[in-house]
């Protein structure tokens, strides 16, 4: 029983992280028609930025240093997303998909290596603090930490806010319009560059929250965590159906369930978690290329 409860908690925690990354991939793909392969790396710069400003934040705001440092890092990563779009990714929107793919993969490598060089002792892992200490409850004899509770609540709130934003604000409606038909959106006086900026800010900041959660959940940050986080988030988006918000969340739940199951059920399963996770991705691509909830993605990719 305790085993089961513990695994359910792990599942939900992982789902939160994957979902926050996956909705960013989906949003960016939907609006720009570009798969932003460095999205994971962008998001995972957040813990480094947070640690870099922590000392200053603690001095300025005693007691709330960590919270402020994280807010700063999330905002900074959102701005980083806008910059990357402006400098590079936007140029590949109309280019052949292969070019965008190579370019964003290369961008991810550049980001990882920059962290390694610029952050003191950047090649080695660094500890990352638990965001909220202590346990929220005991369920079936298992301690449920505040961190996991906070991750789940934050994810639900962010997904709900994003959905409300996309469906019930003028700006959100414009974003959906650009994602459906860019040329027509321009004919309605929508400046697509503004929409790209907003989309990149939202997606990158969401990825930053995922990055901070990820680092806090595993207790450490490392320059190359972005690649695996990005691949898992992207896979979750593909499983659910790229470009589809609900799909991104469903995909995250499925992928995290598989991930958790493999680790829990098979002896030494941890070693195989990625093998199984990506076999799942392959299976979806072979049998349901549009994803579990997708409608018509293949002609876009």
């Amino acid at each position, binding site marked *: 029983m305790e085993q089961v409860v513990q695994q359910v908690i792990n599942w939900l925690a992982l789902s939160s992280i994957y979902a926050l990354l996956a909705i960013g991939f989906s949003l960016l793909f939907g609006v720009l028609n570009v798969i932003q392969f460095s999205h994971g790396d962008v998001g995972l710069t957040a813990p480094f930025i947070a640690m870099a400003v922590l000392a200053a934040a603690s001095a300025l705001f005693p007691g709330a240093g960590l919270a402020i440092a994280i807010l700063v890092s999330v905002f900074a990563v959102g701005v980083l997303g806008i910059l990357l779009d402006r400098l590079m990714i936007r140029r590949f929107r109309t280019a052949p998909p292969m070019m965008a793919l190579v370019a964003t993969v290369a961008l991810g490598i550049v980001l990882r290596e920059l962290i390694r060089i610029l952050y003191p002792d950047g090649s080695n892992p660094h500890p990352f603090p638990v965001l909220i200490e202590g346990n929220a409850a005991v369920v079936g004899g298992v301690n449920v930490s505040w961190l996991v509770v906070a991750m789940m609540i934050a994810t639900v709130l962010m997904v709900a806010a994003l959905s409300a934003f996309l469906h019930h604000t*003028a*700006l959100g409606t414009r974003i959906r*319009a650009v994602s459906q038909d860019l040329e027509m959106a321009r004919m*309605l006086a*929508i400046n697509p560059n503004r929409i790209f900026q907003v989309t990149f800010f939202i997606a990158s900041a969401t990825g930053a929250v995922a990055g901070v959660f990820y680092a806090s959940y595993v207790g450490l940050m490392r320059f190359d965590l972005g690649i695996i986080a990005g691949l898992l988030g992207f896979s979750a988006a593909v499983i659910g159906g790229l470009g589809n918000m609900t799909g991104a969340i469903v995909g995250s739940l499925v992928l995290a369930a598989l991930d958790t199951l493999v680790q829990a059920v098979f002896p030494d399963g941890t070693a195989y978690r990625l093998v199984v996770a990506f076999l799942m991705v392959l299976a979806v691509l072979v049998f349901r290329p549009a994803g579990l909830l997708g409608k018509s993605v293949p002609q876009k990719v």
Partner: protein
Amino acid sequence: MSDAIFSAREVTIRFGGLVALDRVDIDVAAGEILAVIGPNGAGKSTLFNVITGIYAPSGGRVRFDGEDITGWQTHDIVMRGISRTFQASRLFSDLSVLDNVVIGLHTRTTTNVFEALCLPSRSRRELTWAAATATEILKRVGGDLYDRRYRRASELAQADRRRLEIARALAAKPKLLLLDEPTAGMDDRDTDALIEDIRRIKADRPEFAIIVVEHDMRLVASLPSRVVVLDYGRKIADAPFDVVRRDPRVQEAYLGQTEP
């Protein structure tokens, strides 16, 4: 023409070696309806793409409402007062009928991204205004649009889709409306209804100008005050329909083929 709200002078477009538009002059006065006709590939859609800034002309100037808009970005041109519909349906099919019109109202709202984040009450007020205005527009345009305003645009019948596209273009309160083959794919009854719709819109706002690219001769004969004929990128006629119809060059290039 001195009172022209729109004028194109010597507009030329080259795609590699192909000359899609060859020194074309077009004037439209405020309140006028101008038809542009010509065989397939004559440069009609290219002309619309130049006017709306999708293509920058290789030569020539485009003036609109007292300003030289040559080479402007599409969204700036639309902001200035030119709206357009496309030949193929370009509705946002996943958005509701109402939201399709709300988007068209974008030119008339002022809240930008940061104001929307910092002053949510103001952006909410604007959204309420947009929804109410869009509802009014749908009521006036007619068809089943008003009753189906919360449905997805993809569920509409062909004639209503075309109506909705026109409603969306009108939402921006343009001074010049470009209609690209509005009757394409319509039967006679729908075409008659569309001609009536356009007449009603004109009656509401007599000052605004329309350029319509069209193949349907009934529409061309009944609506416009003037007809421009393009052939291989050149303007070969510019006169009232009755005159154009009797022009031997036009008959050879166009009418002779479709109305023997």
